[in-house]
């Protein structure tokens, strides 16, 4: 088959680029380049995906212009239709805000990459432009018009000359599907415990303590989680201290704690009722409730 194709090509007339093709190239080529550059410089990953979709669409049309209609349609259907939409799905799953950080982990890496890219591009473009000046393309007009056209010829070639790689491709696709399933499997098929089962398990000793941890206390001066809860005697409940927030040790709050626990005499709440010792207030009532509790302790 290949020999036949090559023999036809050798006898065929040289391919020439028509004006229409040149117009299509000078429109679609810059569009493809703009799509690539837009993907490179877009801060938002979704914008990058859309720029890349534009670039791939332009490339698909360029394939069709270059007498490869089958590949052009496969490009549009598989790449822009399936692969890019898969990219967008994953972007939406991962979250749109997972954008690039501007911080350079390696110092000067962006500059080095830009210099590398510039040098690489200049080298490749110069090499291609210098080495391929005298080439006269054989063209695919004859191949695409005999034997049922482009699609039939590609199919015949796939199932005769390239049969073994084609079968390997099937193995690759099965492996990829299995691998994606294994990697994306989360294993959330266990039944959730009911509330009753949770309570029973808690009292059987599967947790450290049967009740939840006490919440943080709230003072008039601070309502942060760093503020510990107080027990009945005014001491700090050690289990309400956050393990993460170690910086707010109890001694930082010593003054507040002393005031609340009544070890220091606070302002007299009943001072406005009159002097102590009058008939309305019994002796000792001018002290705060916390103070009386402290006295009761001692």
């Amino acid at each position, binding site marked *: 088959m290949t020999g036949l194709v090559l023999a036809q090509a050798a006898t065929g007339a040289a391919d020439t680029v028509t004006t229409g093709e040149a117009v299509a190239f000078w429109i679609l080529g810059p569009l493809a380049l703009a799509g*690539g550059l837009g*993907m490179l410089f877009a801060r938002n990953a979704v914008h990058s995906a859309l720029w890349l979709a534009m670039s791939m669409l332009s490339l698909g049309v360029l394939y069709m212009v270059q007498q490869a209609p089958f*590949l052009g349609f496969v490009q549009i259907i598989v790449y822009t239709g399936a692969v890019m939409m898969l990219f967008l799905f994953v972007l939406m799953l991962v979250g749109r805000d*997972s954008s690039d950080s501007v911080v350079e982990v390696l110092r000067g890496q962006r500059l080095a990459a830009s210099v590398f890219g510039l040098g690489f591009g200049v080298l*490749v473009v110069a090499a291609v*432009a210098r080495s391929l000046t005298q080439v006269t393309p054989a063209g695919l007009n004859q191949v695409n018009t005999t034997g049922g056209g482009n699609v039939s010829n590609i199919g015949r070639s796939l199932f005769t000359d390239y049969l073994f790689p084609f079968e390997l491709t099937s193995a690759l696709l099965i492996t990829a599907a299995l691998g994606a399933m294994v990697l994306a499997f989360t294993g959330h098929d266990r039944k959730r415990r009911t509330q009753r089962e949770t309570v029973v398990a808690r009292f059987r000793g599967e947790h450290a303590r049967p009740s939840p941890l006490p919440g943080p206390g709230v003072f008039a001066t601070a309502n942060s989680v760093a503020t510990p809860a107080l027990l009945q005697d005014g001491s700090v409940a050690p289990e309400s201290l956050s393990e993460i927030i170690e910086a707010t040790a109890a001694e930082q709050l010593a003054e507040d704690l002393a005031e609340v626990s009544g070890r220091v005499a606070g302002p007299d709440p009943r001072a406005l009722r009159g002097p102590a010792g009058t008939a309305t207030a019994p002796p000792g009532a001018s002290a705060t409730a916390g103070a009386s509790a402290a006295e009761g302790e001692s």
Partner: protein
Amino acid sequence: MTPTYYLLLSALLFTIGAVGVLIRRNAIVVFMCVELMLNAVNLTLVTFARINGGLDGQVMAFFVMVVAAAEVVVGLAIIMSIFRTRRSASVDDSNLLKY
């Protein structure tokens, strides 16, 4: 105009993709840049098929597309599982095997 211009376009696209792989930090965008490089190579194959006058280059481009599709599926699944454990899709955050 000769078909060489297609090769120049493909070289430029490949360069853009390579620079993107080096510069971007989001793993998904890095994957997109790899896709752009594969597409550039496909354009080269199609152009060479035309210059050569046979369909072998187009068949090769077809195989490249199949491999690229499989690669995207597995790669995105890996990115998803990394994101599930690390809560980040940045390639800078996956540095536990660094030292």
